[in-house]
């Protein structure tokens, strides 16, 4: 059924269709609307056999999900930004225990400085925590990925994070096709746990493991991720057959035939990139793009294949690995091994800075001419940066950088009256 609704609403309805049994969450922008919607649905009795548990923190939210999942319930939570960091220990526990929890991350910057807007530093900081990470390009895909996520999580007994760009998707109203309960029921069978805490058949979960077995437990967690590399395309294909649209999978190429420049990105920015690729193709530039849907497991082989004929690869990422450059691009470089290609990292959209067509056009022209540096900060205000560096060099007590820059930009008053 076609609907014009907010992204958060679409995700909430999709989660409800997956028949979760325990939902626990702590509100944090920009994810709040998702759990608010779910809370209302549960309160109205629209989600059968589901308990919504209010908790006091994100750490508790995921800990409750872990307990619920270990007791055999289909468990869901959602968070963002500092909330994800606050639950970090539980994030590792959920995957270490092999519990198939599904969690939405409404992608948002990490402080300090505090910032509520979109980038992907939060989920990427948890890239090695053992969760599968899927990134949605549109609200339709966000909705679809949640349905796939429950199936994938439970087949492998591994938790799945569905990453949805905060505000850009979570707060956007756009058309989505909401499947029926029957369709979702046929795709997501009832949860059959591999391990369950059952008083009738007591077991323990979460034993202390020493050096004699720790590597093996870890290896098996890695093995599951490798299995997901095979399962993700299969699920995406089955999803397409049942629901009539392409969503998910590992990577998606766009106009890469004959492309000398290939742009790689995660999430919603791929939409804007495709529009710019169309413009430049019309002007004769051989350019295409690849959207990475799965970041964990990292689709090394599929990406290698997609980039095989490129002369240069431009990774646009909403994250920053301080001291090296990019997080996504560092991973993409591995997929380029054995291919003679120029790799470029572009840090863009941090803390909600708009990634515009105009800036991308300029960037791609530079890349096409071979004039793009290895690492670029898109639309960086060089003057402001240089003035702060001068202040740092001029005086010892130069003050807090964030406040200095805001004052420089005229955003806060110079003095408190």
């Amino acid at each position, binding site marked *: 059924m076609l609907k014009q609704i907010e992204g958060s609403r679409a995700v909430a309805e999709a989660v409800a269709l997956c028949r979760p049994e325990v939902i626990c969450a702590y509100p944090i922008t920009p994810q709040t609307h998702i759990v608010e919607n779910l809370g209302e649905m549960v309160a109205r009795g629209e989600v059968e056999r589901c308990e919504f548990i209010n908790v006091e923190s994100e750490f508790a939210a995921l800990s409750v999900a872990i307990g619920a999942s270990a007791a055999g319930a289909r468990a869901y939570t959602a968070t963002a930004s500092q909330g994800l960091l606050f639950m970090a220990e539980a994030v590792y526990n959920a995957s270490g225990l092999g519990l198939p929890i599904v969690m939405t991350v409404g992608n948002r910057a990490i402080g300090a400085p505090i910032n509520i807007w979109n980038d992907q530093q939060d989920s990427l900081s948890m890239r090695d925590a053992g969760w599968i990470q899927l990134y949605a390009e549109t609200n339709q895909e966000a909705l679809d990925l949640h349905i796939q996520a429950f199936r994938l999580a439970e087949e492998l007994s591994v938790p799945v994070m569905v990453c949805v760009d905060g*505000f850009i998707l979570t707060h956007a109203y756009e058309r989505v096709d909401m499947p029926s309960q029957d369709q979702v029921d046929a795709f997501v069978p009832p949860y059959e746990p591999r391990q369950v805490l059952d008083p009738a058949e007591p077991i323990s979960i979460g034993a202390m493991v020493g050096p004699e077995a720790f590597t093996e437990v870890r290896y098996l967690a890695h093995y599951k991720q490798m299995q997901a590399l095979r399962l993700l395309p299969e699920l995406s294909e089955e999803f397409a057959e049942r629901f009539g649209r392409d969503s998910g999978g590992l990577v998606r190429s766009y106009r890469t035939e004959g492309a000398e420049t290939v742009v790689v990105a995660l999430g919603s920015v791929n939409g*804007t990139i495709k529009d710019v690729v169309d413009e430049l193709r019309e002007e004769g530039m051989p350019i295409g793009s690849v959207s990475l849907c799965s970041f964990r497991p990292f689709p090394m082989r599929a990406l290698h294949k997609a980039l095989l004929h490129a002369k240069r690869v431009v990774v646009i990422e909403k994250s920053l690995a301080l001291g090296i450059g990019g997080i996504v691009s560092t991973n993409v470089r591995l997929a380029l091994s054995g291919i003679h290609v120029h790799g470029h990292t572009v840090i863009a959209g941090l803390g909600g800075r708009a990634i515009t067509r105009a800036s991308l056009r300029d960037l791609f022209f530079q890349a096409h001419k071979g004039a793009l540096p290895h690492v670029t900060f898109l639309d960086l205000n060089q003057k402001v940066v240089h003035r702060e560096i001068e202040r740092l060099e001029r005086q010892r007590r130069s003050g807090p950088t964030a406040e200095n820059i805001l004052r420089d930009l005229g955003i806060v008053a110079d003095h408190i009256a």
Partner: protein
Amino acid sequence: MFQVRIHGRGGQGVVTAAELLSVAAFLEGRHSQAFPSFGSERMGAPVMAFCRIDDKEIRLREPVMHPDALIIQDPGLLHQVNLFEGLSENGLVLINSSRTLAELGLDELAGEDCKCLGCTVPATDLALKHVGRPVPNAALLGGFAAVSDRIRLESVEAAIRDRFPAKVAEGNVKAARAAFDVAKSGRCQEALPC
């Protein structure tokens, strides 16, 4: 693609207006996308929201930088924010005011070589009358339906009814209709003096 930028202040229903417009376009079978500006939203602060309408899927995620239409919910912003930034050459400007464009001093504000169509609608007055609260958003969408061929009044009414409880919806629908009539009455067809 038709792009609308809505300016107002936190608490005036700016984001809701963009969402309602997108629902109205959706009800006419079109693709549309509404989203808020990603600035600090708090009561009274200048805020923006955007709506794109097209016949095909909208992939673009940048803010609306070159609007085809502007809806200005608070004329006080005329002197605070560069409202006309990026407005297309034949753009449409709808302003919530009981005054005329000339009285608002728009000849000084709009850029050169502008062939824009301007229009004022006393949306706050109409909202106070029909809704009982100074929320000009729904009324302005009625006015927008009158001066733009992009959306029908019936679709705006349906979007309002879809969003609000019956009683609130009824008041807003009345305000939208009243604004539609004002806008159709002719006071809106003056070109921006620019």
